[in-house]
């Protein structure tokens, strides 16, 4: 039996690696991947918390955390589609995707 704290600590470590990726990398694709990593760490924490909740009446397990994670995965898919479309457009108009060079809004 694994204590739930282990999962929470792992989730915190993964989230921090994601934050570090957003802070130090200059490639917007890698920044995007770091955001996915952070979403994933939060999902892991939610499933871990959900597995220690007492199950409701007549059920074998508590499902609210898992269903929430399901919605987070759907939102992440939508976010990636729009975000990558934006990156492709920026690359088409500027021929570079370095975040240091994206300092003005006007294309």
């Amino acid at each position, binding site marked *: 039996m694994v204590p739930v*704290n282990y999962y929470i600590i*792992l989730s915190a470590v993964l989230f*921090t690696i994601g934050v570090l990726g957003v802070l130090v990398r200059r490639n917007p694709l890698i920044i995007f991947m770091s955001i996915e990593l952070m979403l994933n760490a939060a999902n892991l924490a939610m499933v871990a918390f959900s597995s*220690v909740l007492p199950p409701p009446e007549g059920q074998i397990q508590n499902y609210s955390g898992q269903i929430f994670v399901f919605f987070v995965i759907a939102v992440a898919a939508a976010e990636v589609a729009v975000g990558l479309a934006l990156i492709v457009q920026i690359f088409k108009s500027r021929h570079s995707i370095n975040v240091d060079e994206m300092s003005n809004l006007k294309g």
Partner: protein
Amino acid sequence: MSIDVLLFLILAVVSVATALGMLLSRNAVYSALFLVLNFATVAVFYLLLGAPFIAMAQITVYAGAIMVLFLFVIMLLGAEQLAPGEALPWQKPLAVLLAFVLVVETIYLLAFRGAPAGNVIQPEVAVNSVEFMRELGSALFNEYLLPFEVTSILLLVAMVGAIVLTKQEKGGQK
């Protein structure tokens, strides 16, 4: 040390190592492949936590769809490596320091102060149960029906948005 804890520790090492590999790779394609491996290990954690449906959704949606989209865009743009620019000299040490503070605070607050008691569910209780999927499905389509429908609208909007953003304008100034 029980076999569950041992399995957890090995997988935790793999997942942290692949996350660091994603962060430190110079080549964006390697980063994407490291991240696929990280998503796969997290899917195994979901199985250990008694969430087989989420584990399969993780594999198909994250490791399958999202990362393939990432690899497509990386190769389409030829953005494997960026030309080195002049970075701020104090940025990296400061970022590492702030990240260290963040992880210490998070672990202290979540895992020691507000310590949720107890162990995670026994895997075999959930994974081997036919009842699991029936109950999960009935919870999803009764209690959470409205969020489920809203998700479908969100996915439609994202699809239309992605098409509008990347479509060539006819006879426009582009």
